[in-house]
C-alpha cells in the first residue's frame, strides 16, 4: 500500500503532457527522492506521457507549440533520470541512432527540429546536422557516427530532389543497406518516398517516431 510513488509518477506524467518544461525536471527529482528507481520512472511516467502527447497530436487537440513543449518537458525529465541511471551504473538502451538534417538549399528547420525532439523524447540518439546540409555530409556523418537511420527533411518542391540525391549517393557507395533512409517535410509524400527509394516516410513528427521504430524493428542496429 504505497500511494505516494503513484502520485509522483502521475504528477510527472501530467507535467510532460501539459508541456510544463520548468516543472518536469524537479518532478523527476522528487520521484527519485521518493525512492523510485529511474527505470521505473521512465517506463511508467515518461514514456506513457510522450505517447499521450503523440495521441493528442494525432487527434488534432495538440498543435506544434504543445508538441514542442511536451518534447521539451520530456527532455528535462530525461536529463535528470539518465543522470541517475548513469550514477547507478545502468544505462538506457538506445532506440537507435539517427542522423537528421534539412537538405541542401533549404533552411526550413522547424519541422526537422520537431522530428529531432520527438525522436530524442522517444529514446533515440539524434545527431542533428542543422539546415542546408550537403548530400555528402549526411552520408559521411552517418558512417562516422555508426548511425542506423538517415532522416531527411525538405520543405521546398525544388529541394525535395536532394533527398533523392542522398539515396543515390548511398547506392553508388554501396551503403544503401547499411542505413535506413527516412524522409519527410510538407511537400513530401509516401509516393515520392517510394519513388526515390527511401525506406520510410512520416507525415508528422509523431509519425516519424513510429516509422523509425518500424524501420529498426527486428534489426540489431549499427551501434553498440
Amino acid at each position, binding site marked *: 500500500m504505497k500511494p505516494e510513488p503513484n502520485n509522483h509518477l502521475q504528477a510527472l506524467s501530467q507535467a510532460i503532457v501539459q508541456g510544463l518544461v520548468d516543472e518536469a525536471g524537479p518532478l523527476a527529482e522528487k520521484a527519485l527522492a521518493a525512492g523510485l528507481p529511474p527505470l521505473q520512472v521512465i517506463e511508467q511516467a515518461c514514456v506513457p506521457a510522450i505517447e499521450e502527447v503523440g495521441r493528442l497530436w494525432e487527434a*488534432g487537440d495538440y*498543435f506544434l*507549440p504543445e508538441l*514542442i513543449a511536451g518534447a521539451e518537458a520530456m527532455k528535462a525529465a530525461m536529463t535528470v533520470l539518465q543522470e541517475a541511471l548513469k550514477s547507478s551504473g545502468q544505462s538506457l538502451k538506445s532506440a537507435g541512432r539517427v542522423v537528421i538534417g534539412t537538405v541542401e538549399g533549404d*533552411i526550413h*528547420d*522547424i519541422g526537422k527540429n520537431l522530428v529531432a525532439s520527438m525522436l530524442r523524447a522517444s529514446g533515440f540518439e539524434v545527431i542533428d546536422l542543422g539546415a542546408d546540409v550537403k548530400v555528402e555530409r549526411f552520408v559521411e556523418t552517418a558512417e562516422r557516427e555508426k548511425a542506423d537511420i538517415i532522416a531527411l527533411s525538405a520543405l521546398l518542391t*525544388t529541394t525535395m530532389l536532394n533527398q533523392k540525391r542522398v539515396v543515390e549517393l548511398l547506392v553508388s557507395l554501396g551503403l544503401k543497406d547499411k542505413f535506413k533512409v527516412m524522409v519527410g517535410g510538407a511537400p513530401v509524400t509516401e509516393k515520392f518516398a517510394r519513388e526515390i527509394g527511401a525506406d520510410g516516410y512520416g507525415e508528422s513528427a509523431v509519425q516519424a517516431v513510429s516509422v523509425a521504430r518500424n524501420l529498426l524493428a527486428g534489426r540489431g542496429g549499427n551501434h553498440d
Partner: protein
Amino acid sequence: MNKVKLKFLAGAKIIKAEASRGQTLSRVLFRAGLPIKLYCQGRGICGRCLVEIKSGRLPEETEAEKKLRLERRFPPCFRLACQLRLHQPLTVRIPDDLLLLPEIKSLAGRFIGKDQTWLRDYNPLVKKYVLQLSREDLSEEERLVSAIKSGLGLKQLALTPDAEHKPKSVGASRRQFTAVIYDDRLLLHLEGGRTDDRILGLALDLGTTTVSARLLDLVQGKPLASASVANPQAAFGADLISRIAFAIERPGNLKRLRRAALKSIAQLTEVLAREAGVKTRWVYAVCLAGNAVMNHIFLNQPVDSLGRAPFRPAFLSHEPVPASEIGLRLNPQAMVFTSPNLGGFVGGDISSGLLYTGLPDKPGNYLYVDLGTNGEIALKKGKKILVASTAAGPAFEGSGISCGQPALPGAIEYVKWSEGRFKYRTIGRKKLSGLCGSGLLSVLAESLRAGWLLPSGRITTGRSEIPVAPGLTLSQLDIRKLQLALAAIKSGTRLLLGTAGLDWTELDGLYLAGVFGSSVDPAQCIAVGLLPPLPRRKIIFTGNASLAGAEMLLLSGEARKSAARLPLKVQHVSLAEQENFQGEFLKALSLGRRYWRKNDV
C-alpha cells in the same frame, strides 16, 4: 492691396480663394484644393490646362499662350491656367476633366489623402505634343531632335534606339506633327498631323495566380477599363517555386512561361480596348508591377538565382524596354516601365504597392503587409525601409482549406456571431459557395469570441469542426493551416520590427494589401492577432495596391522618381537567417491579441 480675390466654379461647387499678386492660376488652384492636370508641367506648350474665365478683367497673354492660341484657335475667354498670372479679381470655371481629384478617388478609394506626392505631379509616362516643324528641321536627325527639344523646353532629348522607326519616315510635306515623348527624355516617334488625343497606357499586375490590367487614357489621366484573368502559367506549376523549377528544368521552358504570360496580357488588352472603344495600337506605355519571379520571366531574365538559397533576384531596377522587344503587340513604339524588385522574393508588385501608399516618402513609421502567398512585409522607419517575405502560403487565398475559395461572388466574406450562430455575408450577395480569405479570418475571430475556438487553435465544439453555414464547416486541420499562415505573417512582422528596433506602438500606420480588399473588419484582424491592436484610423486597407501603383507610375513623374530611388532605400532582411525565427513562429501560432502584448518578447 497685395491679395487678389477669386471665385472658382468646379463641378457644382463654388470655391472662394485668395491669391498673392502675380501668382499663376494653377498654383492657386492647387493651394485651394483643386489641383489640375498640368500635362506639360506648366511649360505652356501642351495647351491642355484651359479654364474658362467667367468674369473679371483678363490679364495679358504670355508669348507661349499667344502662340498656342494662334495654332489651336481657342476662344478668348479660355485661358491657360499655368500661364495666367493673377492681378485682378476673377471668376473661373474649371472643367471637370481637368481636375485631378475625381480620378484619384476612383483609383484609390477613400484612403489616399491629399498629401500624395503625385498630386503635385501629374506627368504621364508617355506624352504627345503637337508641333510645327519646318522642312529644314526635318532634314537631319540632329536638327530635328534639337528643334523638338527647344520647342518643348526639354532639358534633354534622345532618339529612340529603335532605328527602323526613326521619325524621318514621316513624309516631309506635312508641317504639323505629333511628337511622342517618353518620360520627357526620349523621342519615340514623330507622327504626321495631329494625333495627340490617342494616347493610352496599360497598367499591369502580373501575379502568380492572377493577371490584372487597367487601360488608362494618358491625356485625361483616367482609367477606361479594367479586367483580370487567371495566369495561364498555372499549367506549369501552381506556385512560384514550381514555376522556377519548371523554368530551370529545360532550356525552352522559360520561354514557354513567358509566352503564356504574354498571351494572357494580349487577351486582356484586346478585351480592354474593345470595352473602351479604342485601338490597342494607341497604347504607348506599359507599367508592369510583377512579383520578383514574374518580373524575371516577363523581361526574359534567368530565374535560376531565385530558385536556390540565398534566393536573390538577377536585377532590381530595370531599364525601360520597347514593348516590341518583349513581344507585346501594342503601338510599335510603346515602352515598358518595370516597377523595381526590392530583394529576395520581394518584387515589383510590392514596390508599386509601396509607391501607391506614398509610404517611401512619408515621414513616420509605417508597416506594409501583403497578405498573399509570399507574405511580403515592408517596414519604414525614418529614411530606411526594411523588407522581407514570410512565405505564408496560399491559405488565405482559400487554397488547401476544405471549404476555401478565391474571393469571387458567392464566397462568404464576413461573418458575425450572434444569438448562437453565424450570420454571414457573401460577395455580391450571391448564393453561398465557400469561404474566401476575409471570410476565413472573420470565422476565426468570431469563433474565438463565441468560445468555439481556443487561442491554441483547438476547436471546442466537440465535433472537431466549426459549423459556419448550412453545409459548410471548417475542420481542425483547416484551422491549423490558417494558424501556420497567420504565424508566418505575425512572426515576420515582429522580427522586422525587432530588426528596426521599433515597437508596434510606435507605428503611425499600417497598410494591409492583397486578397482581403476592404471587406475585412480591422477589429477582427486584431481579434485573431494578425495585426497589432492599433487604433482603427491607423489601419488602412489598400485593395490591389500593386495595380494602383502601376497606374500611378504611368501618371506621375514623382512616383517614377520615387521608384528609381526605392531600391537604394530598401534593405532586404532574410528571415531565414534570423536566429529566433522558430521561437517567434511558435509563439505566433497562438490566436488572439496576446501575441502583441507588450513585454511578451
